[in-house]
């Protein structure tokens, strides 16, 4: 305590009754609650409640195009053991991994170019990346259909330049078309976290590495990469989750044998009206995505530590 305090005693606010403190604390609580309420209500109503509804439905019994509240585990048994559903899961998983890896690689290279190769143009280029997110996803899917179609831009160009004689059929209604459309949609979402992570790296660290004679590749490997690992993780998770949950792109751009597990969920909910099984497949999908990402990130943590 200072001399003044010794002479004058504790400050007036400290000796005021605790009532004032409590009122202040209550006000803070109220304002915090008011600030948090809208997102909390939004999250609860549009995410938690539907998820619990889905969970409840997944235990219902399906009978004659309807379902009853007779609880059963049969839907989970079906979702986990059906060989056909397993094929849908693996098909989706394969595309999700491919898309996520490509997105991370392209986004990383693009962000690196923005930050270190074309730093003067980075704001414009970053803005262009953001602008590409403005277009509606369905509009883009139909645009890809026009471009990749039999008489589309790509085929017309290749035919007019005599590269091919007849239209390439694998461009549309194929895994190729699905992957292209997903990359187009997800690369901007991959760039955002990786670019943000790169921006947080102090230029002094890079200068120090350069002064100590590290090559550019070594600098990236030992400094940039470890410091952007969170961005990479976020980009991968974004893409992986988005692709695993896809059903529109395979439906509109894929062939009959390119449908994802999401399409199967739609089929169960709609065509057979088997909502309990559809819910069980959906929840199994969510659980498997969480599990896969958990294992992957755990392994990544082990690798980066070692």
């Amino acid at each position: 305590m200072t001399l003044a305090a010794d002479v004058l005693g504790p400050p007036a606010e400290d000796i005021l009754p605790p009532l004032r403190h409590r009122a202040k604390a209550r006000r803070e609580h109220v304002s915090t609650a008011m600030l948090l309420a809208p997102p909390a209500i939004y999250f609860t109503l549009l995410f938690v409640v539907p998820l619990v509804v889905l969970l409840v439905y997944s235990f219902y019994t399906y009978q004659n195009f309807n379902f009853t509240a007779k609880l059963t585990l049969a839907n989970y048994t079906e979702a986990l053991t059906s060989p056909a559903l397993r094929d849908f899961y693996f098909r989706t998983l394969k595309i999700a991994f491919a898309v996520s890896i490509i997105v991370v690689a392209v986004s990383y290279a693009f962000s690196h170019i923005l930050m270190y190769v074309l730093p003067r143009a980075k704001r414009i280029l970053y803005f262009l990346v953001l602008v590409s997110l403005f277009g509606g996803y369905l509009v883009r899917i139909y645009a890809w259909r026009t471009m990749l179609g039999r008489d589309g831009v790509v085929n017309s160009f290749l035919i007019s330049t005599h590269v091919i004689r007849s239209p390439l059929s694998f461009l549309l209604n194929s895994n190729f078309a699905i992957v292209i459309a997903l990359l187009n949609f997800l690369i901007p979402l991959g760039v955002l976290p990786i670019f943000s992570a790169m921006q947080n790296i102090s230029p002094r660290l890079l200068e120090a590495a350069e002064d100590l004679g590290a090559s550019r590749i070594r600098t990236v490997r030992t400094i940039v990469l470890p410091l952007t690992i969170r961005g990479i993780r976020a980009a991968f998770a974004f893409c992986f989750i988005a692709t695993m949950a896809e059903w529109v792109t395979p439906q509109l751009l894929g062939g009959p044998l390119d449908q994802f597990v999401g399409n199967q969920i739609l089929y169960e909910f709609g065509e057979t009206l088997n909502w309990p099984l559809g819910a069980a497949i959906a929840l199994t999908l969510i659980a498997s995505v969480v599990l896969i990402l958990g294992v992957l990130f755990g392994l990544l943590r082990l690798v980066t530590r070692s």
Partner: protein
Amino acid sequence: MRRWQLLGITCAAALLATACTGNNGTTTVVGASGSVNPASCKGVTLRFLGLAGEDGKAVTKAFQAKYHMKISETNVADWPTAISAIKVGQPYDLMTVPMWYAQRMIAAGVVRPLATSKLTEWKNIFPGLAKNSLILGKSGTVYGAPIAWGDGPFVYNPKLVSSPPTSLLELLKPQWRKKYVMFNSNAVFDMLALEDGYKNAPLLTKAQFAVVTKQATTLVKNAQAFTTSYQDGTDRLVSGDAAIDISGWEAMVNFAAAKGTTLKYGFYKADLSGWFDNLGIPTTATHADCALAYINYILQPKTEAALATSLVSGTSNSQAVSLVGKSDQIYNYSTVEHIVTSQQDLLQFPNPTPPNTTPSGIMNFQDWNNAWQNITAGR
């Protein structure tokens, strides 16, 4: 509030929501009490959910103007979407009830029974349609008013197809590979079974089903894509990405004409199946009586004739046949009349899927689903 309390409230809300979505709304007979008087519907907007054109908006302008009624249409991409929309409680007053999904819609509590006694033209609706078991509930109650019917056509782009197929089995040949599109629906088993001459379809024995499944596997493998709706099928044919939509609708020809492209339709020689569509009143309807009045107007001979012309389909009202222009009659009513006039010929409009419970040795709906799932999984 403690976390567990919050979690408890959330779960309670979710359970309440579950209970609410499980509630299929009212299933009382529409028009059972009181009279159906369109005059009391002044200023009402009827919300329609279903196939483009089947709302009848284009042929009911006089009715709409007289009673200041409006029709707002939501054209569905597919039937599962339409059923789901009603199941989760979205309010609609009218919906297309296609024969193929009618029993599923009735079982799922999606549509209400109709008081046909209030429909002045009901007596003139072809009995093959009006008394068809597909639109009847267990107690014989009617759940849909037939408005159009037709043969099961395929639709093709004549620029890409010089000689259209005569049989669905023809499409299994390599020359048709990646040239056609189809719906993601196990109803194709029924079409193939009829091509194979299995008159008992969709009640197939294990051996018959094995044959059909093998053919369907090739059919799906050779298909270019699954279409999501008739509009989607039309778009794919118009763009030239597909040459044939194997499960088309004659109205697609009109959809394409509006886009400046000529499409044609044809029929398989085996005469696989007929179709008929109905107007039903969803369980979420808030203007059910007005919807019934509207249906009553649609069924009037003049309106029905106009609707048949605009949909390139058959009319369901026997009194409307003479009102359909000769050039607009895509069916020779004198020769195909038995299809819709005779109840004995209900096989012409068979349910394309088997029931959930079938006699021993006959494949049921779940068997069909499992087989279809295996095919689309690429097994």
